């Protein structure tokens, strides 16, 4: 598998670590939203939005959209936004 890092270009999977579904972090006290954030996940047959870390590369966190059926990578962007 290969991912295209916005900084480094297309690289082998071994440079990246999967971090999990890219969800919005709730604020404040414990709530159903927190429970969902920590413990509940959709299981889409289709586009999935995820965080990957380019740990053996430039150390950027990436937001990756990936089709779980075809494994096509639909988009990759820097989590911190903007250009380098």
């Amino acid at each position: 598998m290969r991912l295209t890092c916005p900084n480094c270009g297309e690289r082998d999977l071994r440079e990246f670590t999967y971090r999990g579904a890219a969800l919005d972090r709730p604020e404040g006290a414990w709530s159903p939203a927190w429970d969902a954030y920590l413990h509940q996940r959709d299981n889409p047959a289709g586009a999935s939005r995820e965080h990957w870390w380019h740990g053996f590369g430039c150390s950027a966190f990436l937001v990756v959209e990936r089709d779980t059926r075809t494994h096509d990578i639909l988009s990759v962007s820097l989590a911190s936004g903007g250009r380098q």
Partner: protein
Amino acid sequence: MADVTLSAQNALPQGDVIERAGTAIRVLPMQQMTSMMPGAGADALATVLMDEHGLALPGVGQTSTSAGGRCLWFGHRQYLLIGVSPAHSLSDVAALTDQSDGWSTVLLEGPLARDVLARLCPLDLRAAHFAQGAVARTEIRHMMACVTRVSEDGFRLMVFRSMAETLLDELRHGLLSCAARENL
């Protein structure tokens, strides 16, 4: 307070390590290295770097060179200034840390250099994709690394100081293996 001296040591004995089939592995001396992290915008850093050191801020994956030193793109919002002491005003526009001791640098050069590196590193080393002066943060056999192409057949490799010996071992094995194929 009694007279005290401290001696400095490279992680690896300096100089040539091994040569086979015209390809050599050479340990390079330590140099002054300073990390520079400007945060979200790099314009101020670019200005000071040019004013104080005559160095252009390199683009992503690039090197810039001047009479005194070099500047490498070194990662996400990160640059490495090599070979000069950082001007004081740089600390106004970037977070600086000394990295001179943290890394070990080795030169791999010769006709088998690409083949050897291909055994250790998943980077696309083709000249059109990794030109002279290009810099990549990547992996060398499970070690975080920085690879720079310094010539058609030459690569400067950096890994953490603590793993220097591992890097040498891996390079040595790779070179012996590749050289053995020449005699097949």
